[in-house]
């Protein structure tokens, strides 16, 4: 397979913006999302950027971006299109199902789309900053029986192989994967670009296909149920000390030094 024949599917998730302080709902069913600023999950942005860079290097011929969720996901897809993705796919999930939509259902959708579109590279963020699951890429790879390069900090395409440098505990690891493969992006893979105004305008003309999970043969039932979402235990502010000596005394008292 010539490297320029690579086609990439990139998953993007719409999440509460990373700078927003989330608030737990009083009835403990989740966090407040109404009227809260949403953006593309930062790790997904990195995945989009990587796909676009591979395209600019002529290693990838087409970048297809997909998002699963409510209507507003199309804004997230548009952002990816403005960054340079070629076309979008929106898998519309009814609100009732969206509450229970987890990484496993999304992985099933992504795997089905990867097959349908005949892509040979799936690029995702390593985790979403809302549920912090860190599962979708690994599960998509499993469902496709493809190798996985998770937590990537560098991706090199080399003929029929991908060389992926991964962030692991205490350092880096390099693995070589046979294509097709799934890669998940870590923080240091790249710095995503800002979409320029001309590109935002151009993105409006790009195509977004809308479909349902059932069109892909994916069932959305979930066997994991959220029982409650609560505030974390609050730390109480301690005391202010007046001087270094007072601090040292406190630390001695508490046995830290």
């Amino acid at each position, binding site marked *: 397979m010539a490297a320029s024949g690579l086609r990439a599917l990139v998953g993007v998730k719409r999440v509460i913006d990373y700078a927003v302080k989330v608030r737990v709902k009083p009835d403990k069913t989740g*966090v407040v999302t109404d009227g809260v600023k949403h953006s593309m999950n930062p790790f997904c942005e990195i995945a989009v950027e990587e796909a676009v860079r591979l395209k600019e290097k002529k290693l990838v011929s087409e970048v297809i971006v997909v998002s699963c969720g409510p209507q507003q996901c199309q804004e997230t897809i548009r952002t990816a299109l403005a960054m340079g993705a070629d076309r979008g796919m929106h898998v519309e999930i009814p609100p009732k199902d969206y509450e229970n939509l987890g990484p496993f259902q999304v992985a099933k959708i992504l795997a089905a789309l990867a097959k349908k579109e005949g892509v040979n590279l799936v690029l995702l963020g390593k985790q979403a900053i809302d549920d912090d699951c860190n599962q979708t890429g690994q599960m998509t790879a499993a469902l496709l029986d493809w*190798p996985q390069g998770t937590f990537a900090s560098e991706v090199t395409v080399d003929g029929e192989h991908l060389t992926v440098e991964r962030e692991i505990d*205490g350092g880096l*690891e390099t693995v070589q994967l046979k294509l097709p493969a799934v890669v998940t992006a870590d923080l240091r893979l790249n710095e995503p670009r800002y979409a320029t105004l001309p590109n935002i305008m151009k993105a409006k003309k790009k195509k977004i296909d809308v479909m349902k999970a059932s069109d892909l043969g994916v069932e959305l039932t979930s066997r994991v149920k*959220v029982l409650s979402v*609560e*505030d974390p235990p609050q730390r109480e502010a301690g005391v*202010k000390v007046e001087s270094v000596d007072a601090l040292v005394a406190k630390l001695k008292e508490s046995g830290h*030094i």
Partner: protein
Amino acid sequence: QSTLVIAEHTTESLTPITLNAISAAKCLGGEVSCLVAGTNCDKVAQELCKVQGVAKILVAQHDAYKGLLPEELTPLILATQKQFNYTHICAGASAFGKGLLPRVAAKLDVAPISDIIEIKSPDTFVRTIYAGNAVCTVKCDEKVKVFSVRGTSFDAAPISGGSAALEKVSAPSPVGQSEWVEQKLSKSDRPELTSAKVVVSGGRGLKSGDNFKLLYDLADQLHAAGKKTRLLIGQRLLLLAPELYIAVGISGAIQHLAGMKDSKTIVAINKDPEAPIFQVADYGLVADLFKVVPELTEALKKK
């Protein structure tokens, strides 16, 4: 009811988070077994045999397990599951466990639960979402519960007093989709950040990198005093729960606070009395760090 813990190791030794995962497995009740896969597992298997609370160690040795790649380990775990029918499968929520378990779960047609901090009952788990800004309790009705365990939330299982039985399991044929090339671990005489007893962390208040020398001196002084100390520079989404966390020139952005809130004692040094970090600090010192950090280092020297 029975649980399989996937052991993480470096061939030379067991990775400590495996002991936390074993503790979590013990919370479930029922028999705990451990699977060790690798190119040469003898040493780690012997180490594991002595860990309290483990009934059986399953050992799978094959060259294909070099680097413990998920593509190769998954079929092995599936074969082991087929043979022993565990109700739960878990590992530490390290890069290893996080990379591997979702792959295993998808193959078992179940949804996994990541990075749990508490087990309420064999099917109910607690985990954090939004970088620790909310705590979520989930009920898992899957036929097999697959989960990863946050190391700092469970005590390490004692490494002596156990007497597990060893059993060999045969390795399925290699998959050959992936190859481990190399590992570059940052060499340091310092402990791993996540296992450090003391973490000294510097933020924007330090202005330039040259000023980090101030923090190195402080960290060295604490380290010399026998406390495993690490320096943390810049913002990484890391979860730390050391005994002592010293935040220098850090105002305390949401993400930062989420990462270190589980520290036993937090000290904050910042010249801005309104800095959010003071809302979580046990001991706050409102002062110019360039003045007081060297003073603190000196005071520790004298001690």
